Each structure stands twice: as structure tokens, then as C-alpha cells.
């Protein structure tokens, strides 16, 4: 591993985004727009206070998943990954470079959503906005790590895009956002126990409802971080220097 290679990779990914104004605009603007819609769809302050933060967990997760899975697939199919693998770059340099770039992006993305939610949309938060920001960035990184892993199983961008519904929507359905997990059939609850988004949404619920940092929140954050690292390690194993 080499810090200057990692940072050069982060700079390169950010430069790519800087050239792509439309993607950048959508990355920042779409979650904010969705929050505004959500606020006026619910139109009841109590309900928005409860559901709003949960969606702040889901949006960056989903968006980072899509962006990373397609982005890494482009590196694989475009030949740039093969070129990088012939240089001294370590696989971890590439993964950390991505994590750092998308982590920074997630910070901006969530920061904008949060600022709009707390001011214009009148979101009432019991916990601190900082812990919410931290949890949301962890969620974004989880989405990124899973996207990176998923890209290994896609051969084309068509397939990569479809991994979004395949990997992500079941998690959204089972994470307790639509229906409290305790009310689900026990086997569904058991499935949701092993899906990382469940912990992301639970952590958000803790942040929005409790003013103090609870044990559940800390455990959830550890689970999210653990899943991210695991997905990155598995993702690294799918990056091969030699291919058939």
C-alpha cells in the first residue's frame, strides 16, 4: 500500500466527477429533491420526523451502490483496471482511493440533504446532526463497498444496473422502513437480521429519536463499518492481476 498512489486515485476519481457536471448535479441534487418530495407527500411534521432520517440512510446507500458498481465495471471493461494492475498499485490503493473519493462525496451529499431538511423542511431531530452525518456517511460507504463487490459479478453495464434492484431493494423492503421488523414473519425478520441496511436504518432511528448516544447506535455503527470492510476485502479478492 502506498499513500501517494491512494491519494492520486482519489484525486483522479474526483477529477472525473468534476468533468461530468450532470452526474455531479444529480448526486448532490437528487437526494435533496427526494427529501423535499417526501416532506410534502407526508405533510405531517410528526411522520416526517420519523421517516425522514431513515431515508437519509437509504438514499446515499442506494446512490453510491449504483455509481460505484457501474464505475468499477467501467474500469474492468475499459481496460484501465488491467493497466493499473501492471503498475505498482496495490489493490487496496484502488479500493481506498474509491472509498475516500466517495466518502467525501457522501459528506457533501448528506450535508446538503441535512441542511435542507433541518432548515426549510423543519425536520426535528433529537440526536445531534453530527452523529446523523456520521451514520449517513458510513451508510454511503457501505453502499459503495457493496457496489464494488457487485461489479465483479456483472459483465455489462446492463447487468450492473440491474444489481441495484437485486442487491438493494430486498434490503429496503426488509430493513424496517415499510413495516416494523417485529411485525414481520419470523423468517423474514431472521433474513433482515443479516442484511446490513437493517442496521443502517436502525442507527438512524436511534439518532433521530434519542438525544444521547445509545449502545444500540454504537453497535449498529460497528456492524455497518464491519460489513463495509468485509465487502471491501471480498471486493479486493475479485480484482485479479491475471485474468483468463
Amino acid at each position, binding site marked *: 500500500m502506498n499513500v*501517494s498512489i491512494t491519494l492520486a486515485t482519489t484525486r483522479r476519481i474526483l*477529477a472525473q466527477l468534476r468533468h461530468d457536471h450532470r452526474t455531479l448535479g444529480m448526486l448532490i441534487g437528487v437526494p435533496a429533491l427526494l427529501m423535499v418530495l417526501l416532506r410534502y407527500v407526508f405533510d405531517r411534521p410528526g411522520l416526517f420526523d420519523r421517516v425522514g432520517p431513515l431515508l437519509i440512510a437509504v438514499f446515499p446507500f442506494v446512490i453510491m451502490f449504483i455509481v460505484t458498481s457501474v464505475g468499477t465495471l467501467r474500469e474492468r471493461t*475499459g481496460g484501465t483496471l*488491467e493497466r493499473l494492475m501492471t503498475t505498482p498499485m496495490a489493490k487496496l490503493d484502488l479500493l481506498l482511493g474509491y472509498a475516500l473519493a466517495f466518502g467525501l462525496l457522501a459528506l457533501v451529499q448528506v450535508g446538503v440533504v441535512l441542511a435542507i431538511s433541518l432548515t426549510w423542511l423543519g425536520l426535528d431531530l433529537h440526536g445531534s446532526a453530527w452523529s446523523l452525518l456520521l451514520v449517513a456517511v458510513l451508510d454511503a460507504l457501505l453502499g459503495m463497498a457493496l457496489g464494488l463487490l457487485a461489479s465483479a459479478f456483472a459483465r455489462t453495464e446492463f447487468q450492473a444496473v440491474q444489481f441495484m434492484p437485486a442487491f438493494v431493494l430486498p434490503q429496503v423492503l426488509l430493513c424496517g422502513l415499510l413495516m416494523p421488523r417485529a411485525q414481520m414473519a419470523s423468517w423474514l425478520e431472521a433474513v433482515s437480521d443479516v442484511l446490513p441496511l437493517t442496521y443502517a436504518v436502525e442507527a438512524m432511528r436511534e439518532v433521530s429519536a434519542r438525544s444521547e448516544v445509545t449502545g444500540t447506535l454504537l453497535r449498529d455503527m460497528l456492524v455497518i463499518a464491519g460489513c463495509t470492510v468485509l465487502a471491501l476485502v471480498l471486493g479486493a479478492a475479485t480484482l485479479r492481476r491475471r485474468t483468463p
Partner: protein
Amino acid sequence: MQGLRVVRGGREVLHDLAFEVPRGTIVGLLGPSGCGKTTLIRALVGVQVVRSGTVTVLGEPAGAPGLRRRVGYATQKPAVYGDLSVAENLRYFAAMLGAPRSDVARVIDEVGLGRHRDQVVATLSGGQLSRVNLAAALLGGPELLVLDEPTVGLDPVLRQELWELFRELAAGGATLVVSSHVMDEAGRTDRLLLMREGLILADGTPEALRARTGARDLEEAFLQLITEQSGSAA
């Protein structure tokens, strides 16, 4: 390279190849599309899974970590970032190799892309794109340059200039392996490997090949060799 066999897509595409390349020379790898040139090149830079055989590059097994700074590789299909400018691409690859920043200006100059240095790669023409790809391989002054069809789609003047550059690099002690399917480029190499269907048909200097077959040009020499070979097989 000894006893190299490679299987791709369930088919053996290289059959027991063996050859050596002396340092400081330009070796041309010639043959029709699909004859295994790219697979051979991939084995040389160590990104190809091989069935059997050994590939030794600059005294180390191909793909060894110690070689990653010493071998430059330009793929046939340009492998650069379309959404970055020429200079941004090269700065990034230079950082990967730990090459000095001044190298970026040098290689842009060498491939004649000075006027396009800040242009986004996706807006370049095909020939310009393949020159960006070549420039990335030149970064860090590698001892071995492996170039897969570097001159495809270039006008004759540019092609001439690039071959002069290759000659300069070889004179400076670098070894070049250049693939092509254009026969008129073959005459510019020090040594030719003619490939067909995963086998090396002939290995020698362009003059020796012409002399051996009695052909006027290399295209004819190549045809002659194919006839000889299928004659001896029958």
C-alpha cells in the same frame, strides 16, 4: 519464453511457444488478427493466466512486482479514462509508477499531442486516443516496452515519427516488442516473429526472411511460409 501454452475461452490459442528477445532491440510480432498476438503480449506483461510454460522478463518471472516499474504496456484498445484530459490521465498514471511529473510533458511531446494536452480524451480522434495510450506506456522510461498495435489508424507521417521514436528508445537501451498486422511495418524491426494460429511460423531478421523465401516483400514471404508449412504438414 519457453513452452508457453495458453487456453482462452476453452480453446488453446498458443501452442508451445518459445523465443528469446535480446535487449536493446525492436522485435515485431506480426500475424493476422486472431493469431494470438495479444494473448502472447498479455503473457509477457503478466496479466494472462497461462496453462504451462515459463515467461522470463528482464530476469524475473513475468508479472513479478519488481517488473511493474520496468515494463511499459500499451493495450490494443486504448485503456485510458475518457472523461479526463490527456494531461490528467498521464499525471495519474505517472503517480502510479512514481515517475517524475516532468515525465508527463516529455511523453506528451514524444507522441506529438502538445496541442491537445488539456483536451478531454473522449473528444479525441481514434489516432490521437491511441497516442495517449502509447504515451502512458512511455511514462517512467521503462526498460521493456510492450506495444500492442500502437500505430493502427495513424497517418503515414505520424507512423514514421513513431517508428523513429521507437528506434531512439532502442538506441537508448530499451527493448521493444511491437505487434502489428501491417506488413510494411515489419521491415522497420530488428527481428520478426511471424505468427499464425497460435504458432510462430518464422523468427529472424526481415532480410533473412526475405532471403530464405526468395520473396521480394514480406507479405509474399509470409504467404510462402504458410504454403511451406501446410505442405510439410500434409
